[in-house]
């Protein structure tokens, strides 16, 4: 006949202890990943990055920007990849989800910027030409 002994109690306590620790660690990791790889953070990051790239660019340049992490989020949110990066005058807007206005940042370089999704759909390339 099976008799629960002291050793069995210790094992249960240890398992609860380990499970609680793991749960704690998982919650912490989920928080970290949600903060570091969140859509809002990436929208801001890429809007500012693209604006600075354009500021530093000269007419005639083509700049390829890898945006794999942003593409993943846009795909997950079922947001059209071709509308991730838009330009209105000298204001760049990056948007990764429906229902959000995205993040806008202006650039001072008075050039024409034409941004398109690259062939592999892992980012955008920007063609810089003189403003007419």
């Amino acid at each position, binding site marked *: 006949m099976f008799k629960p002994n002291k050793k069995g109690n210790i094992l249960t*306590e240890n398992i609860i*202890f380990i499970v*609680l*620790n793991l749960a*704690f660690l998982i919650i*912490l990791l989920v*928080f*970290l990943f949600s*903060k*570091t790889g*969140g859509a809002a*953070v990436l929208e*801001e*990051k890429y809007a*500012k990055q693209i*604006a*600075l790239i354009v*500021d*530093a660019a000269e007419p005639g340049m083509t700049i390829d920007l890898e945006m794999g992490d942003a593409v993943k989020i846009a795909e997950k949110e079922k947001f059209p990849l071709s509308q991730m990066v838009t330009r209105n*005058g*000298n*204001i760049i807007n990056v948007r990764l989800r429906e229902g959000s206005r995205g993040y*806008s*940042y*202006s*650039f*001072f*370089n*008075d*050039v024409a910027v034409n941004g398109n999704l690259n062939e592999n759909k892992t980012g955008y390339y920007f063609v810089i030409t003189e*403003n007419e």
Partner: protein
Amino acid sequence: MNKFKGNKKGTDKVISVYWFAILFIVAGGIVYMVSAFYGNPYDVREIEAGLLSDKTAGCISYAGYLREGVLSQEFKDNFPERCNLNFEVEDTYGWKEQGQYFLKLNFYDFNSYPAANSLFEISAGNPNLDDSCNLEGEQMPFCLERELYVLAEDGKPYTVKIISAIGKTEKNIQ
């Protein structure tokens, strides 16, 4: 002889309570640091001001020589257009009315700089940003001052002081 004899089970429980207390403190620290870092916007104004200065320097000079017509009234009046600068900004936080860029160029005689007054001055953008440059505080524009040495067509040396100021505090500082 010590009368108190703690049993192992009790000690284990105390250890696990301390363990969780430490875990909470460490996790709290991590959460605070991550929130502080990612909760604040990226401050890119230093890079932006540097790029603005570089572009301006490239616009007024080439290979150490002042470009033709820079020291003219026509260039001064049409400075942003001549240097391909567009100071339009997004219409948030009332930025559009105020302007978030400022650029000032002072041309000095190289031999009497910095004692002498500026011989020629060009500026564009929101001058209020320049006034805030020397003020202390967190919600202040970022200002960058650079100097370069150039030769005019006639060989006269100039020191050009470029002051570029970027506002955009709401999107770069919390």
